[in-house]
Every structure is written in C-alpha cells, then in structure tokens.
C-alpha cells in the first residue's frame, strides 16, 4: 500500500511541476495546467485516502459499486485520452510533412 502511495505522490508531484513549468514558459495554456493538476490531485487523493475515496465512490455509484467501477471508468477515460492524443499527433505529423514538401517545392521552376 505504502509503495503505491509513494509512486502516486511521486508522479503527481512530477507531472504537476512539469506542467507548471510548461505553463510558466507559456508552452501550455492555463486550462490544461489546471486540468492536469486537478487530475493528479485526484489520483494522489485516492492513493492517500482510500477510505474517503471509497465512501465518495459508494455515494456516487451506489453501494454495489466501489473502487472497481471507479478504476474501470478511469482506465477507459485514460485509454480514450491516449487514443485521441495519438490521432492528433499523427495528423499533426502529416500536416508537417505536407508543409515540408510545400515549402521545399516552392519556386522550383526558378531553381532549375
């Protein structure tokens, strides 16, 4: 239990510091900084206070549900997020590739 808590805190602090650094250098918008910070505060909270998190999840999802449901939702959301990021990165790369060709072939008639 302690190891899981330590890992959660470690990554939470790491991501938050990284996100703040990106925000400070204006490479990340405020909304994204708040989103990631909020998300990791939530993760660390669940790791440090599982009994409170369990009470909350029981209240929200009902008595039959518990951490399993919460874990399932978080996993699905995480995978969805990863998939969206992957698609967006792919599309961005293709746009850059097209731009590379466009820039390079501009005025090619004059270069001949």
């Amino acid at each position: 239990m302690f190891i899981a808590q330590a890992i959660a805190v470690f990554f939470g602090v790491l991501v938050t510091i990284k996100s703040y650094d990106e925000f400070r250098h204006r490479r990340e918008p405020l909304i994204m900084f708040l989103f990631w910070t909020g998300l990791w505060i939530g993760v660390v909270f669940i790791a440090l206070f599982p009994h409170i998190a369990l009470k909350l999840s029981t209240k929200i999802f009902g008595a039959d549900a518990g951490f399993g449901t919460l874990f399932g939702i978080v996993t699905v959301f995480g995978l969805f997020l990863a998939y969206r990021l992957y698609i967006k990165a792919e599309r961005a790369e293709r746009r850059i590739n097209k731009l590379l060709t466009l820039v390079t072939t501009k005025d090619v008639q004059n270069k001949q």
Partner: protein
Amino acid sequence: MKLIVAIPAYNEASIIGSVIERIPSTLPGIREILMLVIDDGSTDATAQIAEAAGALVLSHPLNGGVGVAKVTGFTVARQLNADITVTMDADGQHDPANLTTLIAPIISGEADIAAGTRLKDPTGMPTIRLLGNRTMNALLRIVWGVKTTDSQSGYRAYSRESLEHLEIEASGFEVDTEILIAARRNNLAVVEIPVRTIYTNYSKTKGQSVSTALMTFFRLIKQVITG
C-alpha cells in the same frame, strides 16, 4: 522524353557525389535527364556535394523521413513535367547500369510503374535483410493482396500518369510498400525488373531488416486506423 532521377538523401556526404556521377548522361529514348537530390535535412555537406556533382538540390528545412523526401521528389517531377521519374537510394546500392531496362516498360507504355527487384537473384544480400523483405512480401500479399518479390525496393520508374494517382502518406521506409498498395488500389500496371544490387560495407549498414519489415507493417496498419 524527360527523365528525372530523384534521390532522397540524408547525411550521405561520403557517397552522394559518386552516386550522381555514375548516372549516365544519355539513355535510349530519353531527350533530357535531370538529377534531383532531395536533401532531407542533412546536417553534413550532402547538399553542397550533390550540387557540385551537377544535381538540382532541394533541401527540406528539417528531417522528415525518406517517405516525405519521395513525395517531394514526385511533386517536383509533376511540376517540371517529367515523363518518367526514377527513384534511387543515395547509399550507392542501386546500379545505374539498370536504368535502361528499368525505364523501358514505361517508354513502351507496357507499365505505369517498373519496380526494380533484387530478389530474383538475391546473391550477396545479407540474410537478415532477405528475411525481412520476404516477411514483408508475405504480409503484403496476405493483408493487401499485393504480389511482389521485393516490396521494399526503392529503385523504381514511374510514368507521369502514375504519379497523378499516387497519394502517399508514409513518412518513413514504409513508403515503398505503400506505393505498391496505392498502385493496386488505382489499378496501375506494375512490372518487376530484376536489378543488380551493389553491396558495400556502407550500403549494408543502411538497409532494412526483419524489424524494419515489421515496423513497416505496423505503420501501414496504423495508417489504415488513423485514416
């Protein structure tokens, strides 16, 4: 007819000059030959050496991959109204002596694409590379129905019409395989021409292996998924 020999190059300063110089200045049925080097963001003197050797050099501002360099080459070929475009590797493994037989099916109108194949006689090809190529050929046949003996050969000749139909998305080594898939999709006539490969210590370090073949396969699958 106007022929463009397009050579994508990335940090090939040590060999690009000799590759260009070995290309014949006259070929049967060809009125004009233009050597085009697409410098894919090299950090060495590739562009300067290629230019000094007599090629038209176009430089990508950054390294995009051999696939992007080929797309740039095809775009230039269309802009400069090339009747035939030949793609060659910059590592010196392709023998310019095969140019005449490679472009012959395009000149005669027999084919839209003439693909050089090293595997009709794979003597000298490193085993690992041979295995990689055969793996990719098999996967290509099973998944996309493309029959080829050398899916990863970069030594090919293209008619002007074929370039109008090839829309390429690949940025890396998978480009040559993607071209075959696109050719099949567009019902382009592809013939295979046996070509000799010059294996030097240098060119052996540049080729593709089983891992590249599998990477190529997964990248092509990825393209299908991401649209």
